[in-house]
């Protein structure tokens, strides 16, 4: 069986402006290139087989978000190869892709269209039903939403996509108990029909619950990968 997603020695680097301020003055006066390359991910190799779920653990700043963005094809690797033979649902983690000046409904339409899905009435209704946000709320501009409401909207849009891989980034951290339960049920459902899940969380018990495999990131490197129960123990041990 072929892997859905395969990383071979992938490294990702960012170009950072050390001058701090992005200005021509600093560039001219320092007489040197203000841009420095900083490595974010280093020599990342792993595989995701169809129907498999992978947990990603790691302390803040270890490169989890960058890894997710490279999986989504948003960031290109500086070296190594990424083979992706699957469609991937958009990562709308905590509402980052939402347009604050638009209403909830307008955001649903915009994001569906940007992801190549026709924003039909049925699609919008299905998303609204999952998010449990009422008409009044969805007619408000998104900038008035609480973090929990943003997450509800973003994940409902994300889940609506019919993809092979779903990337779930910290969904259970912000939603209330009702929405958490709903998301857990949805994740189980997706797993049962053979979809792959990439699950990012700071709660090792959740990772152990959903994923058979996990990898542990630290300072941009995979320091361990294997069965999720072992990796979760190792993650917990990092903070002892």
């Amino acid at each position: 069986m072929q892997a859905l997603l395969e990383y071979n020695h992938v490294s990702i680097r960012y170009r950072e402006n050390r001058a701090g301020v992005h200005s021509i003055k600093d560039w001219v006066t320092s007489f040197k290139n203000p841009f420095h390359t900083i490595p974010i991910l280093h020599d990342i190799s792993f595989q995701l087989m169809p129907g498999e779920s992978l947990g990603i653990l790691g302390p803040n700043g270890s490169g989890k978000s960058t890894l997710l963005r490279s999986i989504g094809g948003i960031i290109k690797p500086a070296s190594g190869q990424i083979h992706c033979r699957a469609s991937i649902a958009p990562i709308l983690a905590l509402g980052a892709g939402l347009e604050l000046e638009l209403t909830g409904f307008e955001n649903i339409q915009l994001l569906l269209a940007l992801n190549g899905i026709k924003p039909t009435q049925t699609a919008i209704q299905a998303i609204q039903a999952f998010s449990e946000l009422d008409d009044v709320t969805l007619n408000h501009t998104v900038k008035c939403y609480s973090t929990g409401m943003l997450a509800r909207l973003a994940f409902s849009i994300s889940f609506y996509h019919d993809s092979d891989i779903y990337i779930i980034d910290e969904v259970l951290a912000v939603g209330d108990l009702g929405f958490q339960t709903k998301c857990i049920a949805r994740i189980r459902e997706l797993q049962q029909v053979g979809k792959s899940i990439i699950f990012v969380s700071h709660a090792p018990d959740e990772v152990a619950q959903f994923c058979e495999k996990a990898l542990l990131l630290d300072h941009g490197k995979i320091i361990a990968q294997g069965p999720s129960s072992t990796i979760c123990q190792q993650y917990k041990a990092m903070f002892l």
Partner: protein
Amino acid sequence: MQHLHQLYALTKRNVIVRYKHSVLGFLWGFLKPLIYLLIFIVIFSAQFSSVNNYVLYATSGILFWFFFSNITAQGIQSIIGSAGILKSIRIPSLLFPLAEVGSELFNLALALVVYFILMQFFGMVYTFQLLWIIPILLIFTLFTFSITLLLAALNVYLRDVGILWNTIQPAIFYLTPIAYTEELIPARFSFIIKANPIYYFIKLFRAPLYHSTAPDFKLFLLCGSFSVGLLLVSLFIFNRLKNQFITAI
């Protein structure tokens, strides 16, 4: 094909967001040039009593200047302003400045309809020559898009570009014979005007709109090839810079 749908969605977003919290909304698309026009009439028209139909003369410049200035000013911020979307959805970054062109074309079309009706009172002659506006607008749009691409890409890395552009825009405006006639410029300074590409485009637009004639065909071809050339250069530079956008926004 999918990119066309994405472009349409972004253009629609721009149109909605721009006038979201304003009472007059769409009307601003032609109120802004109208206010400028009134200022010019008050300040300059006595000065230019020799210019036939001064209102029509100024309008035929102002409308297209605002088209250029709105697209560049908004387009320059379009990539850094869409950081959220760019970080969560795989989408060509080129679409963001392009969507600014789309929404401004929409605005210009509305404004043109209004001014076409209004200008009959100021001596505009309705002839088939007016159809020249379409090809001229096409090459002017290419030119405007090329400039916007360059500025938007550079602005991702050096935010000075955006500030600098907003600062020098009024200078470019006054260095283009929009409110005044080019005869006003002393011969020894005329090279400044002649070095300004927008001058030539305004000249092209004025032929059908103000003089009711076809534009100078040679000038049209020259402007057209210049725009295409500039677009190729801009696309080349944009493509070189775009891979690191995500890390800098």
